């Protein structure tokens, strides 16, 4: 081992680089400057700020800022300090740590993978489900009002008090199964040919004329409404917002300093996460909607029948693949519902008379639209 190590000394006051000789003693580094001056740096007062990575010079700092520093191109100095002062010098980087660091990095990579999968699959949905009850209903109602103003403005709604009252009977039959619910459900019908319905947060449910005309019976309509009402009762919009926020935070934590080119990739990952959570919510709305039908003593077969109509009406392989869709595959949804429905109930309730049902379906006929109704795979 050499007795003297050549290094550069920076005094912290000038940019002059002084060539010095370092001697390692058991208690301190001894610096011999070119002018003959010597300095003692006790190991416990030295900070190592560079030299922990391969190819990096070792930089040792001493004293308050602006600190004095010693820079040495070889890390062998550290090994010598460890040998000379194993206790006092243990805070200096050890070259043997580099192999261990590689192992720890691989463990960290595995840990990251496990944490991401865990958070994505279970962590984020659980956190959202726990936090959702603490979100005030008033906020949901405000948000719902804005959604309705945007997607179903008053000018596009069908206003016929008598027919809407009859339609409300269908809603009432379902909502009586949730007597303690704080939501006041309000149903609106929009004059649009698409076969669709949606629930806005805060208790607003919107059905489109196309859907009203496509459903063959009030029970089939009730099936669709049960699904939408479950979106309201399960607070899926609030959960979706919380899940999306948590996913953004997760991706921000992962991405760190990444930017630019990766922004697209991150946005893609966020969208995929949203779609995954959306499909989970749809499955839940299907299952809970069917249970709602059963609780309201309505025949779940009507709900299943309408889903069948939707499946038959859609062009095969016309939609996006399952993992890119907001809704699960219709076949899968039907299979789940059929499995849950069980044998036909005996004491079913009839919702509306045939005449009332015919009357309701002409709710928007004052503004007929001759365009063919588009059939969406995502419906209801």
């Amino acid at each position, binding site marked *: 081992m050499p007795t003297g190590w050549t290094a550069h000394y920076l005094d912290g006051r000038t940019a002059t680089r002084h060539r010095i000789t370092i001697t390692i003693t058991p208690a301190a580094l001894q610096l011999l400057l070119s002018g003959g001056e010597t300095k003692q740096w006790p190991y416990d007062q030295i900070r190592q700020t560079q030299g922990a990575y391969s190819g990096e010079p070792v930089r040792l700092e001493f004293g308050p800022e602006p600190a004095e520093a010693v820079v040495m191109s070889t890390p062998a100095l550290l090994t010598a300090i460890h040998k000379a002062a194993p206790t006092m010098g243990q805070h200096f980087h050890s070259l043997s740590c580099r192999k261990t660091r590689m192992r720890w990095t691989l463990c960290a990579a595995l840990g990251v993978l496990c944490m991401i999968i865990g958070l994505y699959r279970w962590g984020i949905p659980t956190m959202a489900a726990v936090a959702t009850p603490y979100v005030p209903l008033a906020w949901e109602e405000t948000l719902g009002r804005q959604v309705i103003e945007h997607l179903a403005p008053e000018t596009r709604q069908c206003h016929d008090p008598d027919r809407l009252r009859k339609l409300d009977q269908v809603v009432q039959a379902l909502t009586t199964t949730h007597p303690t619910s704080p939501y006041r459900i309000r149903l609106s019908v929009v004059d649009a040919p698409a076969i669709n319905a949606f629930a806005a947060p805060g208790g607003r449910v919107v059905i489109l004329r196309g859907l009203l005309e496509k459903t063959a019976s009030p029970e089939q309509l009730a099936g669709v409404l049960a699904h939408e009402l479950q979106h309201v009762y399960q607070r899926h919009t609030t959960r979706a917002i919380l899940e999306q926020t948590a996913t953004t935070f997760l991706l921000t*934590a992962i991405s760190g300093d990444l930017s630019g080119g990766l922004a697209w990739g991150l946005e893609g990952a966020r969208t995929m996460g949203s779609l995954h959570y959306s499909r989970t919510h749809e499955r839940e709305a299907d299952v809970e909607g069917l249970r709602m039908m059963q609780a309201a003593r309505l025949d779940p077969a009507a709900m299943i029948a309408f889903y069948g109509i939707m499946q038959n009406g859609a062009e095969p392989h016309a939609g996006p693949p399952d993992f890119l869709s907001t809704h699960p595959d219709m076949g899968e949804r039907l299979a789940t519902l059929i499995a849950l429905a069980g044998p036909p109930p005996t004491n079913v309730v009839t919702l509306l008379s045939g005449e009332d049902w015919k009357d309701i379906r002409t709710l928007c006929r004052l503004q007929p639209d001759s365009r063919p109704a588009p059939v969406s795979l995502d419906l209801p």
Partner: protein
Amino acid sequence: MTTIGTPADTTDPVLKIDCHQCHTRYRVRHSDRLTPSARSTCPTCGARFAVVSPRLAPSKKEPLAKAAPPSPDHPRSHSTGATAGAPPTKHCSFHGTGGTLLGMQIVNICLSIATLGAYHFWGKAKIRRYLFSQTTFAGDRFAYHGTGKELYQGFLKAMLVFGVPYFSLGAAHTFLTLPKWLDLLLQALAGLVLFLYVPIAIVNARRYRCTRTSWRGIRFSFRGRTQDFLKLYFRGWFFTVLTLGTYYPYFQTQRQAFLNSHTYFGNQRFHFTGHGSGLMVPFVVTLFMTYAVLILCGLTMAFQLTNAGLTLFLIPFILGPAWIWLLGQKQRYFWNHTTFGLARFSSGITWQKLLTLYLGNLALLLVTLGFAWPWVTVRNARFFTSTLSLQGPTNLDWVLQETTVSSVTGEGLSNLLDTGFDMD
């Protein structure tokens, strides 16, 4: 507090020094014995002296004061370095590796998730320390002295000062039922907060980063006043809009002049000698090409010509290289007009090299789904450092430390927009 002795009269063969504290003058009996690290104290007031250079005044044989930085239009050859007899050219280089950076990033992600994101700032400081320590100038490495705690505090302050007002104003309509005019007013105020935020973030982030960066133990500093930059920024945008973009090169040059000329290395200042007219030609050419291509695309689409959609390919294939060319011109112009003492920076950036760099980065990111990010960072750092040099006489040994205090809020502001580390 250390008082640095300075030569009282450089023409006097007998060396004298003044104490800055008590103003007592002393004669140095054996000036030939002075060494760079010699120290003493003032016998009158006890103030400490430190010798900063064995030769306290420039020799008459080296009339540095009469020299001038080399002209930016005729820089010495970047690749060949110094010519015979001329002061050596000082080069930059980057020595980091993508593999090390990837390992650091993996550990950072792991700890960030485990600490619900809190570690992000410590991880960021660690990455920055690595990047700086791998960058050399004239053979010496830079050092980054910022800490994760400072970045975290800065982020919290920035959130309080800008984040909360901005998000509250912007999202008020989601929580409250407001009349249309009030909603519009709040949105406008949110826009104003954002507009104010950008220049304040730029100038204060630079202030923070400079004070946390050192080379050969001497800290950098930025001493520009925020309000002066705000005036420059607002005036710049006002005239840019008023002149339909023509003023933009002048605005950009003034912005760079402000940032560069208020930056110090120790007690020595950087200077900027550029003028907006120097960028006018490249800017006008690029702007003209942009308008021409967009009008062509618009016309073919409007008249529904055959294969009109194909003209859209002109945007990435013509406008992409055009704007990269402008970026290369801009960066080269800015660096070539930045001086330090009697030396001038020189940039060897060309649009071909820049285009190759960006295309390579894009391909790397696309092929690896973004996992090549550390290698992209290394490629960028290597590119910018390899094209940069300092030409002309510089006696860096004369630079003295000057400590300044800087708030970390600016860095936090920068974090909010993720402006990142740039080489402008």
